[in-house]
């Protein structure tokens, strides 16, 4: 298929780490097949592409059928870039949890820009600080859907490579990509009885299990008293198999974001604990439960709290 | 600790008149110092003593005293009185369960009794003591004599404990030389000389004739005091207090009898209309005195009897007749004052002019005619009294409460004659309050004790400023003495 005939794929990254892009590249043989079917018109991580007049009115991005945007929106520049992406792409995919829910960078939302800057670049530690006046920062880190309309949410930190390719392939085929709407627990094989511990164990504590036995013979980590975010986190990391962290016999960290798009992982998790009579106040930093989904106004700086 | 109060407040607290409080202060019964602003300063102990005397809950309790007074606190064995041993002796007062056993100890009687608390006793305690066998203590106590046997306690008792009967039994059990002198003397004199005051026969007859003549001159032409008139229908007794102290009071009845054209007589012997055997708990005396009346009726061939002045006399006589001489009641009719007056009124034998009395008038029920009669004989003379009173006045008001629930004047049961003046006045405070509250200016009653207590004692002690009349005095004054054809004829 000629470059002209192939559907165009545009990839942009905002407040992100490149992990999602790496995941896309990590999909092995299927990448080759994909490259045959799409024309990558924009992908800053892979190839140099001029943005046009950076200082002037805006960016100049190629039009594309599919746009992948990773990372949340943290600066005015990223916002402008995102808007341009939206205009230039037919189908816009929020790519990875930073894009869908702010991700790790949105932990910043607990503080004001000023506080963040002063913490990260203390004034007495060299001249770097002066380079950032903060004026280019937005007041907080946004999920991209807070700023523009998004057609598809593909969460994950990073999303599973096979899923990424599957989504793109589905879009190419004109189908609605099938992503699970259920939680991590759906494919978690651990033994659940509904009778859990009444306390939350320290994060550093290990799960109890027999290393010789399969995962399926291990007791549910939450019921063991480990703070497993599985029930409130949307699944998909295991691709229909045992979720990744569980495979490593560590509790889910919640990296796919809330199980329902508008859900609140913190609230749901605390509610789950409280309803089961577990002392939720034992959690050292409860807001860390929003470590992947602090956008959408769920994390706020302290002075705004009345 | 000083209790600071005003005379008014203290009077209200104890339910007595301020004059009484002043009397107490002046006489030293209640030591008090005059303080600023017309206040009196009273030592807590003195105030407490007064409260104890009338067994009233003190209104003012200093914190220090309260701490030591807590009733719930266990009493130390050292200060505790010697326990009463129960079940040791059998109880001779214990003649019937209705006298005490059935008592619920509910306190109704003690709450109703106007002198409950005096001497730290009340009807409930009396009943309880009788029940628990503390008879000697009871008999030695002055309380049964301070009690007017008004029967308010009995009327309210849900178990119908016969408290008055019990008290009479206690009175009866008292050594004769221990009972109040006046009562003892009255009974003895009556038995010996025919009347309580020992008025000689000649003196009485002379006085009766003289009063009759006066009456004939003033309002009843042709009236002659009928003495020993054989064959007269009605035998009328005379309360010895009247010829002794206020002879003209006899003539009110005479005037009515005259107006009604009654055929009546007074006996020259044993004309006494009192029967203090009842008060003394001396049933034998009571019986003797009643027997004399029966003898008089038989001797004079009368068919009806009237004891005109005194509630207790009617009651005692009726009681004795029913108990010891039931056959006599078949032979003659025993009238109450009300029965007779109503009969005259209803038969048109007398006519009454209400306009003769324009003061606001009330009627005070005698315990014996009212409550006791109701209880003992099945009928209390409540409505009759009011019908008659209303017929003689333009404005009438009831006392509240009255009738069966009425309060004793404070002088019943022989108390008018007894030496317990303070208690009598204290008892009368409720009557005084009632009269005051009614606004009546004229109190009508049917018993000489009641009249005297209200007229002489309560009027003074409580500044009542009311006129007190006998019912028949009121009736006599209201009589329309228009010439009635038959009157003279019948007398002739």
């Amino acid at each position: 298929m000629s470059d002209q005939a192939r559907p165009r794929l545009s990839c942009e990254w905002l407040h992100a780490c490149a992990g999602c892009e790496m995941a896309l590249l990590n999909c092995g043989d299927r990448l080759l097949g994909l490259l045959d079917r799409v024309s990558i018109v924009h992908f800053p991580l892979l190839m140099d592409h001029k943005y046009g007049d950076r200082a002037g009115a805006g960016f100049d991005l190629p039009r594309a059928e599919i746009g992948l945007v990773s990372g949340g929106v943290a600066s005015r520049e990223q916002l402008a870039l995102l808007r341009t992406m939206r205009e230039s792409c037919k189908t816009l995919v929020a790519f990875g949890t930073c894009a869908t829910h702010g991700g790790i960078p949105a932990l910043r939302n607990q503080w004001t820009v000023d506080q963040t800057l002063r913490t990260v670049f203390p004034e007495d530690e060299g001249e770097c600080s002066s380079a950032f006046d903060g004026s280019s920062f937005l007041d907080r880190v946004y999920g991209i859907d807070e700023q523009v309309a998004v057609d598809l949410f593909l969460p994950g930190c990073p999303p599973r490579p096979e899923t990424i390719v599957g989504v793109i392939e589905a879009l190419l085929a004109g189908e609605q990509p099938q992503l699970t709407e259920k939680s991590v627990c759906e494919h978690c094989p651990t033994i659940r009885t509904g009778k859990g511990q009444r306390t939350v164990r320290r994060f550093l504590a290990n799960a109890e299990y027999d290393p010789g036995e399969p995962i399926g013979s291990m007791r549910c980590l939450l019921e063991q008293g480990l703070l497993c975010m599985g029930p409130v986190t949307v699944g998909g990391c295991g691709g229909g198999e045992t979720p990744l962290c569980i495979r490593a016999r560590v509790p889910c960290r919640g990296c796919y974001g809330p199980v329902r798009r508008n859900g609140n992982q913190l609230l749901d998790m605390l509610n789950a604990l409280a309803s089961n009579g577990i002392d939720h106040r034992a959690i050292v930093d409860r807001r860390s439960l929003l470590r992947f989904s602090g956008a959408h106004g769920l994390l706020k700086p302290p002075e705004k709290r009345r | 600790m000083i209790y600071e109060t005003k005379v008014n407040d203290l009077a209200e607290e104890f339910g007595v008149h301020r004059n009484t409080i002043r009397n107490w202060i002046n006489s030293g019964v209640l030591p008090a110092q005059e303080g600023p602003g017309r206040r009196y300063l009273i030592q807590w102990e003195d105030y407490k003593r007064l409260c104890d005397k009338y067994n009233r809950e003190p209104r003012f309790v200093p914190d220090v005293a309260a701490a030591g007074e807590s009733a719930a606190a266990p009493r130390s064995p050292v200060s505790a009185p010697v326990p009463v041993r129960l079940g040791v002796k059998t109880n001779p007062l214990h003649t019937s369960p209705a006298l005490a056993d059935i008592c619920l100890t509910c306190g109704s009687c003690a709450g109703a009794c106007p002198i409950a608390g005096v001497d730290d006793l009340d009807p409930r305690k009396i009943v309880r003591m009788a029940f628990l066998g503390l008879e000697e203590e009871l008999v030695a106590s002055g309380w049964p004599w301070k009690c007017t046997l008004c029967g308010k306690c009995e009327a309210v008792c849900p178990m119908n404990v016969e408290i008055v009967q019990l008290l009479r039994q206690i009175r009866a059990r008292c050594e004769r030389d221990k009972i109040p002198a006046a009562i003892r003397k009255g009974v003895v004199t009556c038995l010996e000389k025919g009347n309580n005051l020992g008025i000689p026969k000649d003196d009485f007859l002379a006085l009766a004739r003289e009063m009759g003549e006066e009456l004939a001159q003033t309002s009843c032409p042709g009236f002659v005091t009928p003495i020993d008139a054989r064959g007269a229908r009605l035998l009328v007794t005379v309360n010895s207090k009247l010829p002794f102290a206020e002879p003209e009071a006899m003539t009110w009845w005479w005037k009515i009898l005259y107006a009604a054209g009654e055929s009546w007589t007074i006996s020259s012997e044993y004309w006494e209309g009192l029967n203090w055997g009842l008060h003394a708990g001396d049933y034998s005396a009571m019986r003797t005195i009643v027997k004399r009346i029966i003898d008089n009726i038989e001797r004079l061939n009368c068919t009806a009897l009237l004891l005109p002045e005194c509630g207790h006399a009617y009651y005692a006589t009726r009681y004795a007749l029913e108990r010891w001489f039931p056959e006599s009641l078949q032979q003659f009719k025993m009238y109450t004052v009300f029965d007779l007056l109503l009969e005259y009124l209803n038969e048109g034998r007398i006519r009454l002019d209400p306009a003769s009395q324009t003061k606001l008038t009330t009627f005070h029920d005698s315990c014996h005619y009212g409550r006791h009669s109701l209880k003992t004989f099945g009928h209390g003379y409540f409505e009759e009294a009011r019908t008659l009173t209303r017929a003689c006045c333009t404005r009438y008001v009831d006392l509240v409460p009255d009738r069966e629930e009425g309060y004793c004047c404070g002088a019943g049961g022989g108390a008018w004659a007894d030496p317990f003046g303070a208690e009598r006045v204290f008892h009368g405070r409720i009557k005084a309050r009632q009269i005051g509250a009614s606004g009546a200016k004229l109190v009508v009653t049917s018993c000489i004790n009641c009249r005297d207590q209200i007229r002489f004692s309560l009027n003074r002690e409580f500044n009542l400023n009311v006129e007190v009349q006998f019912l028949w005095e009121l009736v006599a004054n209201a009589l329309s003495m228009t010439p009635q054809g038959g009157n003279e004829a019948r007398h002739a």
Partner: protein
Amino acid sequence: MPERTMIGAVLVVGGGISGMQAALDLADSGYFVYLVEKTGAIGGAMPQYNKVFPTNDCAMCIISPKLVECGRHPNIRIMTLSTVIDITGKAGNFTVRVLEHPRYVDPAKCIACGQCSSRCPRSVDDSFNIFMAKRKAIYIKYPQAVPLKYQIDPEACIRLQHPEKCGICAEICPPGAIDFTDLGREHDLRVGAVIMALGFQPFDPGKTRAWGYGLYPNVVTSLQFERFLSPGGPTGGVLARPSDRKPVQRIAFLQCVGSRDRNRCNNEYCSTVCCMYAIKEALTIKEAYPEVEVTIFYMDMRTPGKEFERYYERARTEYGVRFVRSRIHGVEPKGNKGDLRLHYINAHGKQVEETVDLVVLSVGLETPDAMVRLAEKIGIHMTPDRFASISAFMPVHTSQKGIFTCGAFNGPRDIPQSVIGGSAAAASVSALLNPVRHTQTRTLPPPPEQDVSRQEPRIGVFICHCGTNIAGVVDVEEVAAYAATLPQVAHVARNLFTCSQDTQDLMVQQISDKGLNRIVVAACTPRTHEPLFRKTLKSAGINEYLIEMANIRNQNAWVHGQEPETATAKAKDLVRMAVAKVRRQTARKPLRIPITPSVLVIGGGVAGMTAALNLAEQGYRIHLTEKTTQLGGNALHLYQTWNGEHVPRFLKELKEAVQQHPRIEVSYTSTVAAVSGHVGNFTTLIRTGSSRKRTIDHGAVIIATGAKRYIPEEFEYGKIPKVVASIEFDKLHMHNETRVANGKSFVFIQCVGSRTQERPYCSKSCCTHSIQSAIKLKKEAPSRQIYILYREIRTYGQRERIYNQAREMGIVFINYEQHGPPRIRRADSGVLVEVWDHVLHRPLEIRADMVILAAATLANPEAVALANMFKLPLSKDGFFQEAHAKLRPVEFHVDGVFVAGLAHYPKPLEESISQALAAAAKAGRLLARKEIALEPNIALVDPERCDDCALCIDVCPYRAIKLAEYRDSEGTLRTTVTVDRVLCKGCGICQGTCPKRGIDVAGFTTAQIEAQIDAALESPAPEGAI
């Protein structure tokens, strides 16, 4: 009686709570019931009350569902304004002549619109409000009356008195229901049994002037006061002095007015309920007006019932109600401003005079003369206290076979005892008429139900005027116009009374005419009226759950009465919310499961045996487990009942009857080891002896595990041999042991272990028991000295007679409440008891040959395990906690489990027997249905959302949620969350827990709640929002 002549119908005389309960139990057990009521509406006395003790429930609210249930039961025929004239025939086949007095209003036509009443020119005193308010000559007894049909008071009606005059009501009555020519009718009813629930009348204190009733306006009876407190009463619930409408500062309650009195009346008995209702009224005042001083003057506070003592204590300590032990002799006015004076003697023996604003006379209960005459006519023996004469062993049987009795006609009693009596009478009738069960009843087949699940919602909105209750405040027309604009609303109607029978018919019509498939009723509260409308939907052929109510009366018009605009706006919001919710309503079907027709009775005491025997006679198989080796339980220690009946003889007969009954199987030395299943289908593991186990299937269970006795630690018990507990004494006494035989002086000490801080409850039967023992001792040898040291003598009801008898015999009663408990010392040849006298306030010393301690009754410690197995609550004192202290006294919230006897609370024998019969009635009523329909408002798992995270499992209080294993299509073993439809009660705790909306209670789904929230906040933009 040959079975073929028996009749499967029952006459219940009296429409009070007891009669209603009997009627409902019988009608549901397969018998047709005629419920004859002498007034124009059923309900009896309860609708007049403001609240009920000790739950403080609103009386009207708890009784109204029962009223409605009676009103619409296909097998209950309510005959109002009717009296029984004569009963002939015999058990199984009676003919009853009933006189139905004219109502002058055709109930079939009357729509209760109230126009007649509003136009009626004649006002008379309203007896429902005890003459403190007026009603018209044409009236309904009370607004919630069943049947809700107007009636004409012929005495008051101008037209009926003067045929040429008035007649306005007939002219304006829209359906033309008024008929001045109505005549009385006589009916001859053929029934198999009769239940006399004739009720009581309050004592009339106006018979004597002492209390000032009728003389001073500020003296009222407790029932009048109840009306004052009632929001529906003459003052609208505002407390004010009748004389001058001034606020009240001081209130005095005078107890025992018309009770325990042989002087001012002839009611020697205790009316049982007055202490508690006085406390209740006092509490109600204190809650509403804490500054008001409330004093209760009493002789003995009689609070022997369950939770009564705590109620009393709470009134005293928490609410500051003052209790003064002194009977008030009378009430006098003070001044002319309406104040009242009380003079009394306080506990210390001191004189006290007090002024109060209001005196409430706690009037007693008595049987109306007409009822006494009726009883005489049909040959029912009466007690000297003019109540039906009943045996403690057969507490609902009259002296006439086949005629039963219950409620206050059996002696003064409170609501739960009346309810228990009603059920007990029903059980006894059920046993008698079992052969002809279901012969007179009818079942109406429900119309076929159309499937609306695929239809677009077509919502019908019915907006109620509720007379003027709603329309007087809310602009109903505006609301209706607004409702019509809402999406998917296909029809809007306004009704004067949406709940009236005619509107129901109209609704059915409109549902079919307009093709409605979801209904919103904007009216009162779903708590009372939803069942009614559900039934209407059902008869209209659509699923009964496709309804939502908008509460625009109780929660709108009534609470914003002064703000019509606000109320109208709110009504619109509420309608919009209801529409939003009903749109998402789905059809539901109750789960019907067959019932195992047998009953497990746990405990072989009198309660257990009575229940077992009755149910066996009703035709069910019974398994009775007894943990010891013999039947009899605590009654084995009893000698006689309060009225002198011989217990051992009764017990022997009962045991034999139980042992010989073919349908009863008894397991001795047996206990319950495990329980599974649910109402209708329990499976219970019984352990017999140490090892043998067996499984029993049963549809219901009756817990009658009894109680145990307290072993005293006080009063030198166990140290001095002459100090014994009462139960031991009874044995010694029965055998005339030398200590008893030679004894000259006996001291009984009451409340040993009861009414303490540790056990703040009264053991209820000890006063009666000690007095009986004392009387027996005294009868044996009148010279014996007998002392009963007590805190409160609680010979409630007609037991007061034996208290009176005891005193009359010279038994000494000494109250040790004030001065502390007696001191016991060993003496040379006996025991020295020192106690202070409560009247003389002096110490007394008694040399006793024996001291008998009335030891408390304690909860059976084994109840805990049983409660856990059946998931039943226990009270703080360890007794089983019934579902509702007033109206569900033998049931639990767990269906199919019932309680009777001492397991519930300490009580005397006849109350245990009554309760056992009541429990049998409930079990029988359940089994008679043959299958059970379970409420479908339960949690449902959405398999689309649920991912088996198991968070909901542990939160379920009923353990209804489980992880079930299954193999998926590929054969892998997987788990899934399942809800047990029977165990689930629909609380939605799971729903509140689930992070993914994977589980929802039908009818209250998260989506519905969310829709309601959205609809609520959809109103015109909240300008100036915070």
